[in-house]
């Protein structure tokens, strides 16, 4: 949008301003409580509520789009949507390709979960979702990493005994551990919190959302939302 200001054709300029107000938000839709598809088939979760509130504050019309986790960054860069809001942790590696807003969660613990106590998470076989900070962490430890395209499949792999343990966001695993025979083994702190990701050339739009996140932190609405969706850590 910064580039729009530089456009010379006045007509094109005025037309584009009217249109630039619809922002397409890309999410995965498979990562409760952050984002998931509810029974009605719509995007739901903490980030749905947060994103809608942010759009209201930034006075933008937003449209939700779901996309595979694997191709979520390439599709942002090629312009299929304008922002990623998909439980994406802020890391240096990702900062090389996309630009993040400030975090809207604190660096939250990731946790190992397994079927029994005493599993060697540093030397065994550990599942993680592909292209996540957890996968990167497992690869750094001595464990054998098995990657899956969706978070759900990582949990299924532990339950079926295909792997010894799973490493994932603790907020994602908590409701699963509560309802199944899985147990937590230990926490690790990874990443710098979760933020929205934008194209690096899209500074103006990123600024709007950044300001909206800051205002939600200030008036405490963000904390209420984190509470509601039982996500650890408050601002």
């Amino acid at each position, binding site marked *: *949008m910064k*580039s*729009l200001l*530089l*456009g010379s*054709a006045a007509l*094109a300029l005025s*037309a*584009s301003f009217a*249109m*630039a107000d*619809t*922002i*397409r938000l890309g999410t995965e*839709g*498979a990562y*409760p*409580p952050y984002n*998931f*598809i*509810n*029974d*009605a*088939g*719509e995007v*739901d*979760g903490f980030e*749905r*509520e947060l*994103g*809608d509130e942010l*759009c*209201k504050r930034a*006075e933008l*019309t*937003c*449209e939700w*789009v*779901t*996309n*595979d986790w694997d*191709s979520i960054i390439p*599709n942002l*860069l*090629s*312009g*299929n949507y304008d922002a990623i809001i998909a439980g994406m942790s802020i890391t240096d590696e990702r900062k090389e*390709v996309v630009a993040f807003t400030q975090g809207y969660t604190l660096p939250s613990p990731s946790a190992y979960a397994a079927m029994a106590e005493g599993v060697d998470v540093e030397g065994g076989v550990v599942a993680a979702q592909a292209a996540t900070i957890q996968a990167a962490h497992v690869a750094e430890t001595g464990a054998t990493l098995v990657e899956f395209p969706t978070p*759900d*499949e990582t949990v*299924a792999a532990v339950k*079926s005994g295909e792997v010894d343990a799973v490493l994932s966001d603790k907020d994602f695993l908590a*409701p*699963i551990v*509560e*309802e199944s025979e899985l147990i937590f083994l230990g926490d690790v702190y990874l990443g710098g919190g979760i933020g929205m990701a934008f*194209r*690096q*050339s*899209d500074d103006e739009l990123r600024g709007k959302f950044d300001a909206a996140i800051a205002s939600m932190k200030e008036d405490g609405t963000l904390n209420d939302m984190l509470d509601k969706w039982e996500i650890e850590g408050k601002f």
Partner: protein
Amino acid sequence: MSCPPPTQRKRPAIFSYCSDPASLEGFQWLSCYLTTGKHMAFYVSFGTVLLLLAITAPLALAFGFFGASAARSRVLPLSLFGKGYIAIVRGVPDIAFFLFFVIALDQGIEWLRHKVKCPGWDEPIRQGNDFLVCQIAKMPLNDSPQWVHEVYGFSLAVLTFAIVFGAFAANVLFGAMRAVPRAQMETAEAYGMTPRQSFWRVLVPQMWVYALPGLSNLWMVLIKATPLLFLLGVEDIVYWARELGGSKTARFTDYPHGDWRMWYFLALLLFYLAFTKLSEIVLERITRRLSHGQATVAGEAQRKGQAKGAAA
């Protein structure tokens, strides 16, 4: 200007007793579970797949027909174009072609629109990793409703499928055109038909019977290739089966269940089996009809069978 409020746990009121699923059991629970909005989307996606097949098959056949006609043309550039199309597309793995072509096509269209609609643009289109065109050159426009985006994605998928399967069809038709007995063409020429006339009146009507085994094979492969839609970002039956089958905890759904992916994929398997079986039956009938009166073994057998029937 604001976003629609998030709608949570909204159920379609198909059955009145579905308001409290936790208290239901057995058949009633299942009837509610299978009629959630999410399941409706799953059922609709079967329609998406069938629609894809219905549009792609004739389009691919058309591509194949033009490819084959071009390949056997006497005009050298046209013939090279036809042969090149067949060779290149047949030689590249489907997945590579699907991933490359859709992105290239999408960006190509946006680039062309950008050139036409924003001539005053002075920034590079590629900035680092980003692909940037002006807002009004976006395809579809950013503020178009979601269904426009979906239709556009679907059309790209159809076109890609048609190009890939068109190349195979072209190869089949090319062979079929050459399989029509030379004597038939010579006879046509002897009657004074121009090359164009003999092509349309003699060659084309007769080639189908030779093309059919190859084309029916292609149709089967096309049916089986539809899950590639998922790769192209279209929410097809594979996407929904995986999404619905994954285990669900009670906090985020009214219908918690374990890992049911096996059952959903079993349903897909049955769907594909039933559909290919149906196709086989239909193709069998078409073969019988096309063989009628043809100078082939099958056509000859039909003729003799009829003669025998008449004699008895």
